């Protein structure tokens, strides 16, 4: 599955790079490097929303770096194990 993280300036300032690092760490810990692919994206146009724009395949979410662990449990794991 593909996780796309917006790297536009607004998301950068909201912590997009921290989110990438956190996701990378969790993916490594859970041995999912072969199954989850992280990718950057141009500005998704949701700059005024609180949180970084992230797409799981084509579904859009807005996340703060501190939400990542929970989000991984709730959304990503469900999709990976599906």
């Amino acid at each position, binding site marked *: 599955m593909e996780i*796309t*993280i917006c*790297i*536009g*300036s*607004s998301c*950068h*300032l909201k912590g997009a*790079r921290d989110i*990438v690092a956190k996701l*990378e760490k969790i993916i490594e810990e859970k041995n999912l490097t072969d199954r989850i692919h*992280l*990718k*950057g*994206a*141009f*500005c*998704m*146009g949701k700059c005024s929303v609180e949180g970084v724009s992230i797409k799981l395949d084509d579904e859009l979410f807005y996340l703060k770096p501190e939400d990542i662990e929970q989000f991984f449990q709730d959304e990503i794991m469900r999709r990976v194990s599906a």
Partner: protein
Amino acid sequence: MLDKDATIVSVKHEVLYQVAKHAFAGDLEEKRDQIPFDIIPGPQANFRCCVYKEREIIRQRIRVAEGRSPIQDKENRNIVQVVESACEGCPINRYVVTDNCQRCMSRKCQQACNFHAITIMRDKAVIDTQLCKECGKCYQACPYNAIADLMRPCKRSCPVDAISMDENKIVVVDENKCIHCGQCIKNCPFGAIMDRSFMVSVINLINSGLPVYAMVAPAGEGQFGNASMADLAEGIRQLGFADMYEVALGGDFVADSEAKEWLEAYQEGKKMTTSCCPAFVTMVKKHFPQLEENISTTVSPMSAVARLIRAEHPGAITVFIGPCIAKKSEVIESITQDNADYALTFEELDAMFHAKGVELQASNAVLQQGSIYGKKFGASGGVTAAVLQAFKEMNAEVDAKVAQCNGAQECKKALLMMKVSKLPEDFIEGMACEGGCVNGPGSVKAEMQSRRDRAALFSKADGRGIRDNIAPYYDKYQISLHRK
């Protein structure tokens, strides 16, 4: 520019300039809707049917300049974007019988056509466009070369057959095939294909006060007349960047690292390709996936310098600036690889200079971070020459043969040979642009026009060796030069 249409270049520049100007001023949000009227004041249209269409094209171009898809509800992930309102749908039928037709007795065209699309009329053969499947058999069969192949320029320029038409004859770029080489962007006579830009993001980050570092590709020398790397660095600092690095220094790192890799591969009898041209790398990944493990694991020069900058300045935001559109895809694809944060083209840099009123002044100041070998990385044959120089400096005796693939077509041929294990050479130097990066689609000047200034600037470079040049950095920072 010689190989680009001057009018299209100026329209694209005007849009980038206006967007950059308002982004620097921080009022892009309020002024965005005003820009089409500033560029197309009317009431007379210049190139299209009316000012309303012209303004709509500008609106779509603004969106691409801001990094989005041209139409709000038709977002896609492509880097190469089709500005639909600017695409004329080129209403040309691919095969047309010209006046050269002799109305000959053999009727080879008619016999060659499997679709009964050809009728011999009183003056010449005629192709029924409703029946024609554009197979090209008649074109090959005509003994008088009387049938013309009028392929659309975008499609003709694409080396990987990624371009097709929708039902309205508007161009569609297949992201699963596209290698982001930028040839279609360069070749569309209506400027209807554009590359998304990180320019506004970079300007916003500069405005936010964070330390943003520029890294300028070796193809930059000569792009801005006789401005040297030191003069470019001065102009770039005036834009608000913290400082500028030469990517030629990354070229030195890569040459040294690839020399070591090649040496190993050569002894094992394994064939290998270079990894610095992102369009070439994407060509391997998307069109020759079985050869992916033959790509050198050394990172690109851009990536090497980004890692170096982060080691020297923790927290730095790194921005590559070069002639390349495919670098934008490298940035997006390798967010976990400690690569550059953003990539811009020289066109975008030029618009930023214009927007900020920065005029580059040729001075006597000197800035040389890369060796002359690193500086020549951006021309076809340059990577090979640098790796061979690194062998020499290592005192390694290697009789390696290198297929120097100049342009995407040659890359494709060599990869095909490699795929069937018939490549006579040991290594492939892959560069998707003919002539190398110096002819990249994001340049402001074609190689022909920058050649003289480039040669003059190179003649001032000192003769330092590759390994001596990078040794101090290695000792200090222990940067990894391989993909994670």
